[in-house]
């Protein structure tokens, strides 16, 4: 075993060497004029790479940038007080939940003059009616991504996902809200219904659909559709944009029954100790140049009017990714209700346990 010991020792020493090397590059000097450290909590790969550096240089404030995988994971950490995050970027229903549980600070919009660039139709949204707590960052819709070589009929309704012609070629989302939402919209009900009868109907519809579904997927749906593994998939508009750029055979459509409208917005958790600096950060993110960089890098739709003007007109004029007001008539934003979540979860477990 002496050799194994030597090998292991070598690996250990080598690793320490490498890590010190990379760590040294990373730690960097803290040239900040202030002692403030801003804790920013965002989705992974959801900001253009140079933005944080630019902010640090311009304002001299050090930034701890952390990432989370889902709204729920972020919520658990913030609610438990496990960190003094100053700025977080959750999604709509989570913001509503955090507002109702007093987890967010009211933003002083005098400190965010760049807020004027946010399009008016994205202010005072359902989850933050008086727009006191959030500033929109990215938005989009949920729709159907389809492969034009496998689907030759027009795609304009959720019903196509129940069509036996596409047996085992359909991808649904492994997410209770999203999949139940699709079924509810198909039946003409609200995505936020608390009516148990309507939920049971949605459950029946999804159970009916189950034999046709190839898989309930999460993030890997993008690669699957690009590789041509399926004919139809439920995706978010931003992801659809990415998929189409990788595989031109794909196309995105929004069903006429309506769908989900989603927003990721910047908020200031109540545990923040640096509200003024947090507002500076949010204001920085709303500068036209910065907003444009982010929108261009991420590829999702931006609510920033000036950034929109700077983007490629072909993208901005594509109503699939930048729907106009009239396209969004039957759209709903997710709401949040603690009791309802238990019902949704039980029903979803019943659907997936069959």
């Amino acid at each position, binding site marked *: *075993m002496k*050799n*194994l010991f030597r*090998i*292991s020792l070598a690996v250990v020493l080598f690793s320490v060497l490498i890590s010190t090397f990379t760590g040294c590059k990373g730690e960097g000097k803290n040239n900040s004029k202030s002692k403030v450290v801003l804790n920013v909590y965002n989705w992974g790969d959801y900001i253009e790479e140079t933005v944080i550096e630019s902010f640090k240089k311009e304002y001299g404030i050090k930034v701890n940038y952390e990432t989370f995988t*889902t709204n*729920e*994971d972020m*919520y*658990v950490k913030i609610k438990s007080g496990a960190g003094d995050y100053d700025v977080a970027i959750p999604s709509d229903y989570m913001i509503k939940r955090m507002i109702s549980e007093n987890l967010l600070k009211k933003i002083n919009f005098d400190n965010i003059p760049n807020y004027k660039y946010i399009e008016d139709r994205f202010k005072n949204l359902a989850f933050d009616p008086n727009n006191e707590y959030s500033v929109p960052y990215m938005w989009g819709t949920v729709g159907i991504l389809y492969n034009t070589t496998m689907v030759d009929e027009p795609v304009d309704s959720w019903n196509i996902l129940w069509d036996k012609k596409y047996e085992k070629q359909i991808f649904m989302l*492994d997410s*209770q809200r999203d999949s139940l939402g699709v079924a509810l919209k198909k039946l003409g009900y609200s995505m936020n219904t608390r009516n148990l009868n309507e939920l049971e109907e949605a459950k029946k519809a999804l159970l009916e659909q189950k034999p046709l*579904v*190839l*898989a*309930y*997927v*999460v993030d*890997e749906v993008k*690669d*699957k559709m690009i*590789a*041509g*593994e399926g004919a139809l998939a439920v995706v978010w508009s931003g992801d659809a944009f990415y998929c189409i750029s990788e595989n031109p055979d794909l196309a995105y459509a929004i069903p006429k029954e309506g769908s989900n409208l989603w927003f990721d917005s910047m908020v200031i958790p109540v545990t923040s100790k640096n509200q003024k600096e947090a507002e500076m950060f949010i204001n920085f993110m709303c500068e036209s140049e910065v907003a444009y960089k982010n929108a261009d890098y991420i590829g999702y739709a931006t609510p920033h009017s000036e950034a929109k003007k700077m983007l490629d007109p072909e993208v901005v004029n594509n109503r699939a990714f930048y729907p106009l007001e009239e396209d969004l008539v039957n759209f709903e934003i997710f709401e949040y209700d*603690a009791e309802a*979540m*238990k019902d*949704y*979860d*039980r029903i979803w*477990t*019943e659907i*997936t*346990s*069959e």
Partner: protein
Amino acid sequence: MRKNWISYPYIVWMIIFIVVPLLLVVFYSVTVVTDNGLTFTLEFYKRFFQPVYIKVLIRSIVLALISTLICLLIGYPVALILAGKGFSRKNSLILLFVIPMWMNFLLRTYAWLTLLEKNGLINTLLSWFGIKPLSLLYTSEAVVLGMVYNFLPFMVLPIYSVLSKIDRSVIEAAEDLGANSYKVFTKIIFPLSLPGVMSGITMVFMPAVTTFVISRLLGGGQFTLIGNLIDRQFTTVGDWNFGSALSVVMMILILISMAIMSRYDKDREGSALL
């Protein structure tokens, strides 16, 4: 060897970092915040006893058992062969066994998707031989494959570490007395390796019951497993009480399974509380 003080650092650690959190979980599972403040309740345990949840638990345990068995059947020969003669540089081979696990788990599982998909590498390879594409993904077989892939080193390593130092003289004595290789294996080698086997089974079966990422990605979310259910309670649903109750039930069941399995372990070294 009466020196029990040597384990005291661990005992202290264990109490702070394992027992206290456990008590927290149990606490959550039997209390609920009502208008009267904190009250004791068994409602969450009662809620567990619905067919849908019991089905989920049984399915998870069955899947874990199958994976553990396959790991044992595949892994034991590997450990045996590597420990035997005829292989030089065994230690490097053992390290090579573990190194794939140092690559990120999500990446490796995505790589399996690339291999098993309809247009994936395996099917592309088969098509060169004129074989029609097989539907390898989104089946329970794919999930078992994923589990075995992830847990195999945990079965092989403990068994190898025991087998590598089996007293040669005992084997030679048996052979001198006329035993053939089969008898040598069943009567001598296997029983002597049992402690390693028990450890291997423990390190595979237990995490296998509560794993769910593999079944989500390779099984296509077709069925909920207990790990998935518990994870959702703590995150999406926000019902920590129910999640804790589920965890406690699962813990008790697994401990009982381990106790039953360790009846095969003559010295009862493993876990038997019974």
